[in-house]
């Protein structure tokens, strides 16, 4: 079966899984379901010939599920969705349906699946190994051609973790 068939199947499963995640009443169940959607995404990355990303997505999924379970799993079942009012899904539908329609017309303008533009990446593919000496071209782009973006990313991760630590710290520093 060509890769598109597999991708349609996996994407259908992911959409179904995310709907189940959002509608489930049990917190632990919905966290496990979002973990499963993430693992299906790692499979999609593997089929799309992106092994770096499959590894990173798989390894990101595990601490994400751990953090969510640690913070939310033992709460009392106070069931916040008591009244199912009809107004907010209707309003959300009013927002989302034009978004989907505009998205459909916009996505038709893109190059078809399987024929990317490769204006900049053609040069990276052709001369990446020679200019940087690295064989893994994704690493060569991340750490040689576009290393300024990686500096920005390292700073954002640092600031995010620092913010999380500051908010959740029980005792401040002494002195």
């Amino acid at each position, binding site marked *: 079966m060509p890769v598109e068939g597999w991708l349609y199947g996996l994407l259908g499963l992911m959409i179904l899984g995310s709907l189940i995640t959002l509608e489930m009443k049990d917190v632990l169940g919905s966290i496990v379901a979002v973990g499963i959607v993430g693992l299906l995404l790692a499979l999609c990355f593997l089929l799309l010939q992106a*092994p*770096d990303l*499959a*590894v*990173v997505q798989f*390894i*990101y999924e*595990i*601490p994400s599920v*751990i*953090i969510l379970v*640690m*913070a*939310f*799993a*033992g*709460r*009392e079942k106070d069931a916040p969705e008591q009244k199912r009012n009809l107004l907010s899904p209707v309003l959300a539908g009013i927002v989302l349906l034009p978004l989907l329609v505009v998205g459909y017309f916009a996505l038709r303008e893109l190059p078809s699946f399987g024929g990317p533009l490769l204006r900049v990446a053609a040069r990276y593919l052709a001369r990446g*190994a020679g200019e*940087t*000496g*690295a*064989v*893994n071209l*994704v*690493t*060569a782009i*991340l*750490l*040689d051609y576009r*290393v*300024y973006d*990686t*500096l920005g990313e*390292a*700073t954002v*991760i*640092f600031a995010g*973790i620092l913010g*999380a*630590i500051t908010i*959740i*710290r*029980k005792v401040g520093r002494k002195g």
Partner: protein
Amino acid sequence: MEREEGMTLIVKTITRFTVWLILLYGFYLIMHGHLTPGGGFAGGLVIGLSFIHLTLAYGRDFVRRRVKVELMHALEATGSLVFLLLGLVGLVTSGVFFLNFLGHGEPFTLFSAGYIPLLNLVIGLKVGAGLYLAFYYLADYRPGEGK
């Protein structure tokens, strides 16, 4: 409470072997980042996960006595600083920010690609220490009890 003491004896015995293997795998992913899929981010997360594995198996207080949290803070800050300094070296010597100043070497070997292995190592330390710190401070909370 029983919860602080970690898991059963079987889990603790197996953790004694697997935590080193996980750490080794993390370093492998970091150091071979320019040859195989992986890189600094994946390897750093795996290193953080090895510490989380240790904490989950042995209990919070046991690990907190042995792995000092100031060391983790220092590793994370040092990682960011060394990353920036490696860029500034290029700026100071030849006017180009983030110049690849080490030699290229032979392709397909470990010591190739200039300073990319160094950058991978620094990023790996930073991300791993950051993940462990976020987990460390989050582990104080149980949603059932509260303040």
